[in-house]
């Protein structure tokens, strides 16, 4: 057990190193590009800005005349205290609070879609492999593969057009009804679920086939192994063989895929959020690019990088818990 913790700490050290590299690149790249955020702001106000105001802005964005290494340490210090600067497009809101809002919507939408899709897909895959050649196994994989093969933006727009615009069953945009205030009140919570339903459904339909096929294929391999034959020969109940012997082992390789997907959840579902005008990370990113909002972009990139690294570490922990062969 101690060696497992040692292993996890070593992995954490590796991820910390990777995070440092990402943070440093995040600092360097905008400084190597021409122009700076203050100039963009200046351009926006069409020259009606005094030089002292520009200087103050530059100060706010952390771009000073100080040597680059001093800027770097200031940047690190600000980052550690949770300060990623001020968003240009949402001026004067700080980047951290802009991202916090986007992040919570992304986690809510893409996170629940991922979890539902993963649980549903792997269960269907396990069942299809268990009754190989049966009804579920013959119908579901080709059908889901077909649905997954449609270009996602096309399918999502079609869904929005039919169920949102045509039939009027679902809202056309945003994450919660107008007139409700975010917080722990019933109209807001119900409204949030109502708004997330259609985009989440399109994401689930697009990804379900992948999870199902991956699980089905590993499961078919596992079902052919000796310990399944041996578990059956010992007179174990079929359900127990299915869950504890077959599915439990077949799940292991799919956990990695789940972890990767989890990392990208925090980056937001770009296409979904654009099509459904959903205010998550992906939507923010597009806005940031359009408005050349460098501080926000930087903050988003950093969040995505840290999220992927964090998700990887989570996978390390889960794998360690589920697969005794990885413990030493």
């Amino acid at each position, binding site marked *: 057990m101690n060696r497992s913790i040692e292993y996890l700490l070593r992995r954490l050290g590796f991820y910390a190193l990777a995070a440092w590299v990402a943070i440093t690149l995040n600092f360097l790249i905008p400084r190597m590009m021409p122009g700076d955020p203050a100039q963009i702001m200046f351009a926006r106000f069409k020259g009606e800005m005094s030089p002292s105001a520009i200087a103050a802005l530059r100060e706010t964005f952390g771009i000073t005349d100080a040597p680059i290494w001093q800027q770097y340490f200031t940047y690190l210090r600000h980052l550690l205290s949770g300060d990623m600067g001020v968003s240009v497009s949402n001026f004067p809101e700080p980047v951290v609070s802009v991202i916090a809002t986007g992040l919570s919507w992304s986690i809510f939408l893409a996170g629940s879609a991922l979890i539902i899709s993963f649980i549903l897909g792997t269960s269907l895959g396990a069942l299809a492999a268990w009754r190989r050649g049966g009804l579920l196994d013959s119908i579901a994989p080709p059908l889901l593969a077909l649905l997954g093969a449609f270009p996602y933006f096309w399918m999502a727009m079609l869904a929005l057009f039919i169920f949102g615009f045509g039939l009027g069953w679902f809202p056309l945009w945003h994450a919660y009804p107008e007139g409700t205030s975010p917080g722990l009140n019933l109209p807001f919570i119900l409204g949030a679920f109502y708004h997330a339903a259609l985009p989440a459904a399109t994401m689930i339909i697009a990804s379900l086939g992948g999870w199902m096929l991956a699980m089905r294929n590993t499961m078919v391999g596992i079902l052919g192994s000796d310990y399944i034959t041996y578990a059956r020969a*010992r*007179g*174990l109940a*079929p359900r127990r063989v299915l869950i*504890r012997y077959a599915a*439990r082992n077949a799940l*292991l390789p799919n956990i990695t895929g789940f972890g990767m997907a989890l990392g990208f959840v925090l980056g937001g579902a770009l296409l979904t959020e654009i099509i459904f005008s959903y205010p998550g990370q992906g939507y923010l990113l597009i806005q940031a690019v359009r408005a050349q909002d460098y501080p926000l972009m930087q903050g988003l990139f950093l969040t995505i990088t840290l999220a992927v690294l964090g998700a990887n570490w989570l996978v390390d922990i889960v794998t360690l818990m589920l697969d005794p062969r990885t413990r030493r």
Partner: protein
Amino acid sequence: MSLLQVENLMVDYLTPDGALRAVDGVSFELKRGEILGLVGESGSGKSTAAMAAMRILGPPALITGGEVLFDGRDVLRMSAEQLRRWHWREISIVMQSALNALNPVLTMQEHFLDTIAAHRPELSNAEMLTRAAELLKMVDIDPRHLNSYPHELSGGMRQRVVIALALTLNPPLLIMDEPTTALDVVVEREILKRVLQLQKEMGFAILFITHDLSLLLEFATRLGVLYAGRLVAIGPTEIFRQGGIHPYTQGLLQAVPQLRGKREAFKSIPGSPPSLKKPPNGCRFHPRCPLVEERCRKEQPVLKHVQHGHQVACHVRT
């Protein structure tokens, strides 16, 4: 009444190029407490026959004919639930590779508890644990290994655990399908010695499947020899010790090096076993047989009684 009676068993493997008959009309019986050995080369159908008799073969294998009686009950007509209850309480198996027979994510303890709970759900957890520890001690493994995972044990230890698992419910019949093939000779001996001791104490019958004829000569009560899916000789071990009667058996015995007695060059049987896709006509051994006659190429020989309960399928010897 015999414990296990297999009559004219036929097993086909369904391949894309058509059915392939792996076991072709094999019959044998096993009495309580005896050790029946089945020998044959790879692909002779010995494992398939045993697994078919236990009904643990899955697709693409299919039992296409014959009868299997266990203690008078028709095994081939048992329902899934009847099979589940029959397995392990009355018939258990030690499979070839113990490395792969254990679920890599479960501890030894979980393997034992799953097995006991499947058949004796009325037992308490503590009673099951006591039984599991007792079983491990029976095969000379320290009960602290109950908390070990399969990958933490050596090959020999894993094989012992699998044997202990097979004896969990005191079944009257134990099938051992090449139980020691993956182990080195020293470990093989130790484990076999222990199994034979346990067999004497507990009195279960063993159906022992191997390609190692010399091993069986030491302890089997009776022996059956399979060639290309057919039984070519069966009878008390004594006749085999004296050299056998069927030309294939004789060839096999001459291929066993002797430690004592006259120094002789051991011979091998020329050729290789036939393809089951296109087995030779008549006697399947005829292309390799030193005694081949015209009749052997056309007529399929049947098992005939020769002496002291020894039966062979050979035109020349009967």
